[in-house]
C-alpha cells in the first residue's frame, strides 16, 4: 500500500487536494470499515455503554426507572462509603495485598530468569522451564482448589506433615493472618515461570561481546550478572514495575473471591470483593457502582502518576 500512497502524493502535491485524496482513500477502503465495524460495535456496547452507566454512582438507581430517569443524589453514596465501617479495612487490605504481591512476586521471576540464564546445560534448562511454565495454564479455581486440598485441616498433606513433626493442626484457610501469605505464595508458584520469560528474552538480547570483554578483564560471573545482565534488562524491569505498581490496587480479584470465606474476611475483604458482595449479591447497585468508580479512578491516576515518575527518573515509560 505504501507504494500506492507515494504515487498519490507524487501526483497531487497541492495542499487543497489533500482532503480529497483522504476522502477517496476512505472510499476506496470501505471494506476495511465494514470489517472493523462489528469490533467497534462490541467495544461501544460492552465497554463504553457501561461507562455511561457509571452515572448511577451519583444517582439512586431504581430498576423500574432505568439509568437515565433515576434521581440524582450527588455524592451520597461516596459519602456513605467513606464513613462506613468497612472503608478503612477495605483500603488497608487492598493496598497491603497489592504491595505484598509486588514485594515478593515481582523480584522472583527476575531471579529465576537470571538463574536460568546461567544454566548452560540446555536440556536441564528446558526441563526447568517446561515445569515452571506449566502452572500458568491452570485455572484459578484449580489452583485455589489444590490449595484447599493440601491445606485441609484433617486430610491435607501440609497438616499431616505438621502432625508428623508433632505440631498442632493449622486451619490455614480459616485464619485471617494466613490469607495474604497464602495468596502471594500460590501466586508466585503459579506465575513465576511464565513471568520470567520476558526477562529471559531481554537477557538473550544482551550483546555477548560485553561478557567476553568483562571476562578478559577478569570479572567473575556474579560481577558480570550485576554489571552486565541486570543493567541490560533494566528497561524491561522498569516497564513491568510501572505496570505492576499502576495496578497495585487492581488485584486479580477472582482468586481473592475464591479463597474468601466468612472466617478470613477480616484479612481477605478487598474493594472488588466488597463491590461484588454488596452489588451483585445484595443488589445495592448505586452504592457499589460508586465504590467501583472510586477504585477505577484511583487505579487510573496511579498508573498515570507512576508512569510520569518513571519517565522523569529513568527515561523509560509506557507512553
Amino acid at each position, binding site marked *: 500500500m505504501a*507504494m500506492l500512497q507515494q504515487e498519490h502524493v507524487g501526483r497531487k502535491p497541492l495542499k487543497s487536494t489533500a482532503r480529497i485524496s483522504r476522502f477517496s482513500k476512505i472510499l476506496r477502503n470501505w471494506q476495511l470499515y465494514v470489517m472493523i465495524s462489528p469490533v467497534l460495535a462490541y467495544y461501544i456496547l460492552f465497554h463504553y455503554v*457501561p461507562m455511561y452507566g457509571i452515572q448511577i454512582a451519583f444517582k439512586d438507581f431504581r430498576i423500574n426507572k432505568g439509568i437515565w430517569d433515576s434521581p440524582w443524589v450527588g455524592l451520597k453514596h461516596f459519602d456513605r462509603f467513606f464513613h462506613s465501617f468497612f472503608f478503612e479495612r477495605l483500603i488497608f487490605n487492598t493496598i497491603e495485598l497489592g504491595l505484598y504481591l509486588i514485594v515478593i512476586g515481582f523480584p522472583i521471576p527476575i531471579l529465576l530468569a537470571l538463574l536460568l540464564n546461567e544454566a548452560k546445560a540446555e536440556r536441564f534448562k528446558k526441563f526447568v522451564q517446561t515445569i515452571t511454565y506449566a502452572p500458568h*495454564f491452570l485455572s484459578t479455581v484449580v489452583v485455589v482448589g*489444590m490449595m*484447599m486440598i493440601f491445606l485441609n485441616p484433617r486430610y491435607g498433606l501440609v497438616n499431616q506433615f505438621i502432625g508428623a513433626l508433632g505440631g498442632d493442626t493449622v486451619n490455614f484457610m480459616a485464619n485471617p493472618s494466613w490469607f495474604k501469605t497464602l495468596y502471594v505464595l500460590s501466586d508466585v508458584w503459579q506465575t*513465576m515461570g511464565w513471568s520470567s520469560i*520476558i526477562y529471559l528474552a531481554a537477557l538473550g538480547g544482551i550483546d555477548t561481546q560485553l561478557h567476553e570483554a568483562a571476562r578478559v578483564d577478569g570479572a567473575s560471573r556474579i560481577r558480570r550478572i550485576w554489571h552486565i545482565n541486570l543493567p541490560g534488562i533494566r528497561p524491561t524491569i522498569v516497564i513491568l514495575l510501572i505496570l505492576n505498581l499502576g495496578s497495585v490496587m487492581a488485584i486479580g480479584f477472582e482468586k481473592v473471591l*475464591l479463597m474468601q470465606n466468612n472466617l478470613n474476611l477480616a484479612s481477605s475483604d478487598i474493594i472488588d470483593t466488597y463491590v461484588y458482595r454488596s452489588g*451483585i449479591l445484595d443488589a445495592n447497585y448505586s452504592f457499589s457502582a460508586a465504590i467501583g*468508580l472510586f477504585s477505577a479512578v484511583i487505579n487510573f491516576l496511579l498508573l498515570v502518576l507512576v508512569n510520569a515518575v518513571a519517565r522523569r527518573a529513568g527515561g523509560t515509560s509506557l507512553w
Partner: protein
Amino acid sequence: MFNIVVYSLLSLVALCVLYPLVYVVSASFSDPQYIMGGEIWLWPKGMTVDSYASIFKNDAIVRGFLNTLLYTAAGTGLNLVMTILAAYPLSRSDFAGRNLFMGVMVFTMFFGGGLIPTYLLIKNLHLLNTFWVMILPGAVSVWNIIIMRTYFQQSIPAEMQEAAVIDGCSNFQTLIRIVLPLSMPIIAVTVLYYAVGHWNAFFNALLYLSDRKQFPLQLILREILIQGQTDEMVRASTESAIKQQRAVEGIKYAVLVVANIPMFLLYPFLQRYCVKVIMVGAIKG
C-alpha cells in the same frame, strides 16, 4: 561452585512446582483411604480408577465438561473472527482513522465501567442465563488484536498485498486469499490463547448464570473443591458415611486431573508457540 549453586537452586524451584502436580495425579489413582491416612507421598498406593469411574457416573461433572467444551469452541471461534476483523484493517497504513480506532480500544484496557454497570447492561440486554452471555461479553481482547496486527505488519510483505490489489483483489479478497494463508502461526497462537481463557474462565459464569444445567466445568469444580458441596456426588450410593467420605476425597483429586486433561494435551504447543509470541513482543517492545 557457582554452577552448583545455580543448578541446585533451579532444581529446588522445579521440585517445588512439580511436587503438588505429581501428588494430585498420584492421589487420583490411589485408594482414598490411603490419602486420608496420609500414606501417600509420591507414588499411588492401592492403585485404583474408582475415583475416575465415579466422575463419569456423575451428571453434573459430565454436563459441566460438555458445557465448557461448547463454550470454548463457540467462544474461540467468535474471538478469532473478531480479532482478525480488527487486526487486519489496523495493520494497513492506508487505513484512515486507525489511530482513533486503536485508541478507542486501548482506552478500555485502562478504564472501564466496572462490575455493576456491566452487570446491569447484561441484565437489560436479557442475556442473563443464556448461552450468549458466555460468548459475547469477552468477544475480543485488545491484547490479541495488537499481537495479530503486529504480525500482519511485520511478517506479510506489503508488496504482496499491493500486487493483489493491482490484480483486482478487493480488501476482503486480499485478507482471505493472501494474508490469512500466510498467518497460520499467529492464528494458532491466538486460538490457543483464547481457548485456554475460555476453558479456565469461571467469573462470568458465576455472575451471569444461575441455572446449574448451564454451568461450565470450573463452577462445578468450585462447588466440589472449594465449597465442599459434594452431597450430590454420593447421595445416590447407600454406602456408609465413612465410605462416602472416602469417595468424596478421591473425586476431588480425579476431577482436578480430568479438568486439566485438555490443557495437558495442548501443553507442548502452548509452551512452544506462546513463549515465542512473548519473546517477539519483548524484543520489539
